[in-house]
């Protein structure tokens, strides 16, 4: 089941009780807010076990973006969901580690399939 956001750029998919959000390469503040609202609503309505943000299409990510994503996923955890990020590009991972970006509470996976294997079909 896919649902494009208001801008029609990113997509959300459910798989085995996990909400998978495919992050667009050019996510701005407004785009992230609409994505967050749509994702949190979906998590609540569908009582999903986890949310995974898939970054396979993202080459660049700033610390401000990550702070917003961290807050977004923190909200998702308060709603009882497990939170993860998959498929970070090496350059982004190096940048985030070097700048000591906040990543607490988020699980990281090499690929989306790894995240689905971990979280899939384990309803909260």
């Amino acid at each position, binding site marked *: 089941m896919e649902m494009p956001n208001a801008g029609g750029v990113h997509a959300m998919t459910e798989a085995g009780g996990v909400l998978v959000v495919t992050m667009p390469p050019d996510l701005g503040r407004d785009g992230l807010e609409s994505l967050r609202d749509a994702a949190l609503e979906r998590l609540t309505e569908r009582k999903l076990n986890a949310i995974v943000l898939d970054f396979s299409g993202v080459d660049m990510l700033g610390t401000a973006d990550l702070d917003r994503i961290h807050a977004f996923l923190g909200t998702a955890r308060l709603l009882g969901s497990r939170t993860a990020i998959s498929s970070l590009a*090496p350059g*982004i991972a*190096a940048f*985030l*580690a*070097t700048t000591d970006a906040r990543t607490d509470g988020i699980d*990281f996976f*090499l690929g989306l399939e790894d995240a689905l294997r971990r979280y899939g079909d384990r309803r909260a």
Partner: protein
Amino acid sequence: MTTPEQLLQKFTITAHDLELVRAAGAVIRPALSDFVGRWYGWLATQAEMNTFFEEASTLERVKRLQADYWRTLFDAVIDESYIAHRRHVGSVHANIDLPNDIYFAGVTVALDLFTVMLGEQIDDPPQCTAMTQALSKVIVLDAYLVVDEIAAIQKERIAQHSRAVMEMSTPVTPIWEGILLLPLVGILDSMRTADIMHKTLTTIAEMRAKVFVLDISGVSAVDTAVANQLIKITKATRLMGCEPIISGLSPSIARTMVELGVNVGEIRTTATLRDGFEIALRMIGVLGELTGQPQKVVG
């Protein structure tokens, strides 16, 4: 890139100086073969002579080339072609590893011989002095071009060696399906750390590695900066979804890290590579297969 005009200005060589060099050339050219003979007479007294001119044919060829070299100097046309030729001479000197002392001594001897030749043939002392000074400026410019090219070639060689050493110093190797090993040896600095970070993360993405073992048994010293860099590498590894293990912590390094207050967080550390490898095998579930015991699997 410096233009011929800029070089002439920098070395304060005027059009009048170039006229004086041409005038000096008119005096010296007829005796150039005699000059070359006397210059090689001096070189024969130097130990380097036998090193660079083992064969008589080589010596004769180089003598001819040197005569041509001085002829172009006395033409006093300093343009792109002239500069390129002098730089080529520099590259030849770099290739034969000509020592700087013998090169500069040779330049000094050549200038002395020219001064004597001009003094013998020019009756007007002020004119002779002016010619010698102008000639000195052009010879110094020549020496600069030659040495600058030698330095550039040596710098490039050093850069190549550094790249080769860097390549060898970060051997991120898959040692098992899903397990990468990086045995670190030597001294860590920020440049090397950045290279390790880049290589490690790229290899993790390429090999789809689940576990990364960073073995520091060969690291000579760990201070706060190095420890923090290692932590950042392992943190970045974890952001890629790959579980890091730091192995090979000697008691002294472990003690130092505690004393420095380095926080390794949740990163697994072991005293030996063997222990680290065992944990890595357990993480990917292989140890269970090998021992027949159920194991927790990463991912």
